[in-house]
């Protein structure tokens, strides 16, 4: 029993241990490379005379088999990775939030059951299987759905977005369910506030912080998944450089000791994933108040 209303956990990011700082650094590096890298490093597709050159001052990440600068390609790939991940996460949230909130509000009733069943089916296939399935089948080519042109990038975004929907919706549902249990929702209903306004005017701001945390973690997952698809050759296609394409493209050269080709772009991917994971963790800690315990 406490005499003062507890603050809703603010979703404030206050890095307080080294690990979080490290995560911030990693994510920052990743985003910087994605946003500024391509401006500085030049054309990622320009071939040069030095093929498979080891990292040097001229080519800090070395070159690939066609003599292209791997730093430029990595920067371009990072940009794609960031954009695709952002778009996928946004898309996933856009679909999942209403679904999750509606399901949570009707917790345990038919609508909830229906929504969750459908999402369960999507989840019955693990993300990569789903990806293989969709991309393996629709092919890596640009598809045309009537007047709509679906490029491979769109496809990857759609796919990851859809794969995130059940995951996000579950979190949104759980958060909504918890909120719906709060008396203020009953109070709003008694007052006569229309349902839509309760859901999206009053509940949403309370569900949002949990979703932001998930969005960060999902960013990490999206970077990984985009990379994995590229690695399998099922992602965004050449000549566009992506982190997955690069990592996968370099595999053939590894046994010859050409480590930089696969390893460096992969390390950037690792930095991105690690960064977003750590940030998500830190936010989630601040949300659950775990870190306040640690402070004492």
């Amino acid at each position, binding site marked *: 029993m406490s*005499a*003062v*209303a507890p603050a809703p956990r603010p979703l404030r990011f206050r890095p307080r241990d080294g690990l979080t700082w490290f995560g911030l650094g990693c994510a920052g590096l990743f985003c910087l490379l994605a946003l500024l890298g391509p401006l500085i490093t030049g054309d990622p597709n320009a071939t040069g005379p030095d093929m498979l050159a080891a990292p040097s001052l001229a080519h800090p990440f070395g070159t690939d088999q066609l003599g292209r600068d791997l730093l430029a390609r990595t920067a371009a790939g990072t940009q794609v990775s960031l954009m695709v991940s952002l778009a996928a996460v946004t898309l996933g949230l856009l679909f999942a939030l209403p679904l999750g909130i509606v399901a949570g509000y009707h917790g345990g009733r038919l609508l909830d059951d229906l929504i969750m069943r459908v999402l369960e089916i999507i989840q019955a296939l693990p993300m990569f299987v789903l990806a293989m399935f969709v991309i393996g089948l629709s092919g890596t080519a640009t598809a045309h759905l009537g007047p709509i042109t679906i490029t491979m990038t769109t496809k990857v975004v759609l796919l990851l977005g859809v794969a995130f929907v059940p995951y996000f919706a579950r979190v949104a549902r759980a958060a909504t369910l918890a909120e719906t249990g709060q*008396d*203020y929702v009953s109070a709003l209903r008694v007052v006569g506030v229309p349902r839509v306004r309760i859901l999206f005017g009053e509940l949403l*701001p*309370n569900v949002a912080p949990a979703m932001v945390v998930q969005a960060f973690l999902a960013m990490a997952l999206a970077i990984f998944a985009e990379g994995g698809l590229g690695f399998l050759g099922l992602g965004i296609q050449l000549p566009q450089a992506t982190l997955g394409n690069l990592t996968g493209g370099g595999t053939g050269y590894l046994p010859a000791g050409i480590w930089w080709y696969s390893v460096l772009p992969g390390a950037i991917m690792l930095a991105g994933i690690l960064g977003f994971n750590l940030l998500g963790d830190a936010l989630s800690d601040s949300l659950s108040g775990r870190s306040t315990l640690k402070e004492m």
Partner: protein
Amino acid sequence: MTPLLELDHITQRFPLGRGQTLHAVENVSLRLQPGETLAIVGESGCGKSTVARLAVGLITPTMGTVRVEGTPVRARMDRATRRHVQFVAQNPWSALNPRKTIGHSVGQPLAVHGLCSSSAERKARVAELLEQVGLPAHYAARRPNGVSGGELQRVTVARALAAQPRVIVLDEPTASLDVGVKATVINLLLDLRASLGLSYVLITHELDIARHLATHVAVMYLGRIVEHGPAEAIFSAPHHPYTRTLLAAIPVPDPARRGLTAITGEVPSAVHPPPGCAFHPRCPYVTDACRKQIPQLLDIGDRTSACLRDGEIPAHR
């Protein structure tokens, strides 16, 4: 005279799955006249909150009708009628949206029911309401966080008042508050009743609060009303064995009057209520008939009581 609020043979059952049903409220009838305060008392799980939720239309009864000023409440009733019955819940900390300002929460009914024509007017009205419950107007800009429970409970009362209700249903409004704070909320309720002529349905298990506020009392046991009548009469001379037990078990804040009496046995399950009178497993006056027959609420002088042996049991103490 049409009662402000009337529960007419209400039954509420919750399906639990696997073919089981929970009998939360069984055949309860209550009416509330203007100016009355009806206290509903009883042990945990006896269905008090469910009655409250039924009364304010948060749930629709399995059977029976709820009437607000004579109009039966349907699933989609017009907001104007329904707003005459408002609700204040036990836990003020969860009764307000933590991410919205107090002003927003108090203003909600005004906005929804179009009670104010402009936002400036609404602001003024919110300030007025806050003052009415004894809070400074600048609280409108604050969020619930950091505001004490007693103050928050007053905010929820202000919100209820904003809808210009005639009845406020209070579900254990003071149960989570400290003694001193409890008193301020009770005082507020007393003041509002005097100044606005409100009626209350007061759900509580703190009998001294019921005694302090109520004009009428309904005692519930396992979803049914076992005794119902004017507060004074019931508190001074309880008839039903359960009411007697309950009163005897309430500690009195006076070291000179010691002597807690305890009965044995547990509250039976609402999923499998015992046959006959639900109280019979714990009743000191039980007879064979009690095990078979469900006693009906009967008018006995100033009150109604549901006990087969009503006349036979000697007066209390």
